[in-house]
């Protein structure tokens, strides 16, 4: 049996029935990871500690209820702070950063009994759609090493696709879970903004960032999401709401669905393959006897410019703390304070990060604030109300995850072309809505993804429709 290809559910069951041990699972993964080092998926790992923990969990008498993921290996995106373990956020700036605390997500997964094998490579400070902005170099797509795995959670997606773990954590500010999931042929979910604590998750754009899960399928994603969700008193934007039983709800027959479609909008892109795949997805819904309804999202196309004002604006402030004073990279041979700032930030940040800090600083500057930031917030509200209106008639909205399949590494050099990667994923972030990506269709031998967007805090219904869609005809 090749343990590394099992789903999370299969691993949970296998461990419970003692078909294999956690140590065997971990050992299996380590050999796969060592075999596929050239994919450049991990920034750091701690196999010794993982084995130690696996031994402990094999001997544990705790019940499944207390530790639902007992002995299950997993991978964290290197954006989540892990106490005593390097947390780089894909940046030279934090190449020497060993946080004295762990992110709430990390703590929760530890409490659930899972074992972290390593930290996954990512675009620097989560800014990128191809993993190419990482200080540690791009991750290669396990399905074709010439292709990008997507970004920014490229390492997390590749880890699942390359059988480094059955699930991984990721973060999604404008599509950073869903786009790489789509590019690597796996499932991903970005929950409602506030469902998962952001504490200890290094900030890119605070009002958009949300942690989530990448997994082989929606059911597995639901199981893992269950473990990281919930109110956290350390994050003032986390929502005080009961966490439903996602894994049960995922497979329940109780949910009624009306899926919102935007066929005209998709056709308006003039991309035949895109329209074709969307059409096939509608066919699948019909075969599953799921109701659909054409809806309007009139301001959807404004998402991209709005996002590229708000996200850089917030990032320009969020990244001010990297000043070479208290932690992180500090330039040597500086003449004075200003020089220390210039050199530390100049040498510590990569080009994409600097570009976004500059854009954000510009947008917030005196005299430009109203024209850019304030206007962007107004349009953001319009986009949100488009969804509020849509959810009066439908239970979810179906969109493509990306406009195309994974592209060749190094092939997109125009930043605006790169930014367009996120055109279908950004709206869910602007509205704070939960959204999944489900593998569906392919192009040039690479997978494509279909995205479902749910209403606020309606992850159960969203996971249910996504799971039905993924499983297809009975």
């Amino acid at each position, binding site marked *: 049996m090749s343990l590394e290809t099992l789903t999370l559910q299969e691993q949970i069951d296998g461990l419970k029935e003692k078909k294999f041990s956690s140590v065997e699972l971990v050992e299996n993964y380590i050999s796969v990871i060592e075999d596929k080092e050239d994919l450049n998926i991990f920034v750091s790992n701690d196999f010794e500690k993982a084995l130690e923990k696996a031994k402990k969990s094999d001997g544990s008498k705790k019940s499944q209820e207390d530790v639902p993921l007992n002995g299950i290996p997993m991978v964290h995106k290197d954006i*989540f702070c892990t106490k005593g373990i390097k*947390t780089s956020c894909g940046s030279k700036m934090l190449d020497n950063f060993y946080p004295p605390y762990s992110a709430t997500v990390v703590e929760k997964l530890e409490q659930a009994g899972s074992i972290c094998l390593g930290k996954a490579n990512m675009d620097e400070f989560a800014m990128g759609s191809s993993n190419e902005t990482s200080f540690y170099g791009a991750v290669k797509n396990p399905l074709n090493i010439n292709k990008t795995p997507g970004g920014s959670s490229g390492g997390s997606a590749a880890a699942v696709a390359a059988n480094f773990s059955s699930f991984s954590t990721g973060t999604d500010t404008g599509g950073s879970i869903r786009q790489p999931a789509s590019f690597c042929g796996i499932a991903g979910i970005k929950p409602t903004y506030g469902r998962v604590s*952001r*504490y200890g998750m290094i900030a890119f754009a605070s009002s958009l960032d949300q942690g989530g899960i990448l997994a082989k399928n929606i059911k597995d994603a639901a199981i893992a999401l269950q473990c990281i969700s919930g109110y956290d008193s350390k994050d003032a934007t986390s929502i005080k709401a009961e966490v439903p039983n996602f894994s049960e709800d995922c497979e329940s027959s109780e949910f009624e669905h009306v899926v919102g479609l935007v066929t005209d909008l998709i056709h308006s892109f003039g991309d035949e393959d895109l329209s074709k795949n969307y059409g096939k997805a509608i066919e699948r819904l019909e075969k599953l006897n799921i109701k659909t309804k054409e809806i309007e999202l009139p301001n959807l196309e404004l998402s991209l410019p709005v996002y590229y004002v708000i996200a850089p604006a917030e990032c*320009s402030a969020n990244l*001010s*703390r990297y000043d070479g004073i208290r932690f992180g990279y500090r330039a040597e041979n500086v003449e004075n304070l200003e020089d220390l700032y210039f050199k530390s930030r100049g040498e510590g940040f990569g080009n994409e990060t600097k570009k976004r800090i500059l854009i954000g600083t510009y947008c*917030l*500057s005196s005299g430009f604030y109203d024209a850019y930031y304030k206007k962007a917030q107004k349009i953001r509200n319009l986009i949100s109300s488009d969804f509020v209106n849509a959810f009066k008639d439908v239970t979810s909205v179906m969109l493509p995850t990306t406009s195309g399949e994974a592209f060749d590494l190094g092939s997109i050099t125009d930043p605006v072309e790169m930014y367009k990667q996120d055109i279908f994923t950004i709206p869910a972030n602007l509205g704070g809505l939960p959204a999944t990506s489900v593998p569906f269709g392919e192009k040039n031998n690479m997978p494509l993804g279909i995205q479902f967007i749910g209403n606020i805090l309606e992850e159960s219904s969203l996971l249910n429709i996504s799971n039905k869609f993924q499983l297809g005809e009975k």
Partner: protein
Amino acid sequence: MKGNWESVIGLEIHVQLNSESKIFSNAPTKFGSDQNLQACEVDLGMPGTLPVLNEKAIEKAIKFGVAINAEIAEKVGFARKNYFYPDLPKGYQISQLDDPIVGKGSIEIQLGDQEIKTIGITRAHLEEDAGKSIHDLFENETAIDLNRAGTPLLEIVSEPDMSNSEEAVAYLKKIHSIVCALEISDGNMSQGSMRCDANVSVRKKGDKKLGTRTELKNINSFKFVEKAINFEIKRQISCLEKGEEIVQETRLFDAINNTTRSMRSKEEANDYRYFPEPDIIPIQITSDQIQRIKNELPELPDEKKERFINELGLSEYDARNLTYDLELADFFEKTLVNIDDPKLVTNWILGDFSAILNKFDVEAKDSKVDAVKFAELLTYLKEEKISGQATKKVLENIWENPDLSVSKSIQDLGLEQISDDNEIEEIIEKVINNNPDQKEQFLSGKDRLFGFFVGQVMKESKGKANPKLVNEILKKKLV
């Protein structure tokens, strides 16, 4: 003021709120611990950490707002104020811009016997304090102490309603007494719990338009407020009289040389790039919450003043001076417990007792002579067992020797008043016999020589003779 100039002053007062933990983290706020021991990962601005608003800071700010009859915001939102400085860990300060918790309000001040003047308060908003840069600890290096980072501050911004330094000091004292009465700050200026920036401008008398203003920073005592403003007014007038223009700039008060010097001009000023703080969702303040705080409000300085006037019969002037400093007012009330003579106690507290506090730079609550002992001392005076002169001496004596009792001090200093008729008669007879000429002149109608005899008797008795008895007996003897 010199010539026909008038000055216009507005103050921005930063009050550290006395919550136990910081405004956005759980770290304690206590003053004086070792460097950086009261700064947690949030205060250090470490990656991934998030601010969580301390509700106590909101409560305290509302208390202040209610006390100055200000509008309280229904929605309180925070904003990021961006600038780089080594003791500002996140590279931005969480402050308030558009939705200050406290809106327009006002307080009243009064100088001497002048009319009451109303000073408008534009707003008061919550923000976090920065850390401290320490430049003199290591050679060629700056040390940073982040214990103060994240301490809650209430920034109280006044209207430019003050026209001289006396008014500015009176306003500052009034704010000080209010925040102390509300117990929302310890008001300790020397430890930086209350700091003040002053906006100063000068214009020709009668001009409607305000002159160009300068902002004076770093003023941390009542005395310095007065000095800094006075210096700056003089500087501006002399500039204008020379035909120069005032440059809009920030100036630093130099307490050692009593001058102000330029720190940065308007052109060099930061563009703070304010935007709403996404990590903190705006909170709603209900009218119930405001009403509850209103109901729980303690006695405010103005109310205390009225009570002192109406119930204790103090003059407006005395009552005001007593209530400027609540510790003094408190000492006053504690003294009254043991001696029922408000007027006498007031005179002594505002007089010699205040003088000795000033001399040793001590607050009333830390007085070396407690209210019980002070009452005992004044009782000796009231019962004419010692003279006023002697009372002052004993006060100084028991201040310097805290273990000494009042009676022992009087004994030690030999200040017990002579109230024995015979003894005083003896002294008087001696004085009269020694000054026969003066006696003649007095008897021939030179009445004012009576004072001369009183003086001589007091001198002869080393100030110990009971003045009342001296008067009575002298009148009888000088016939």
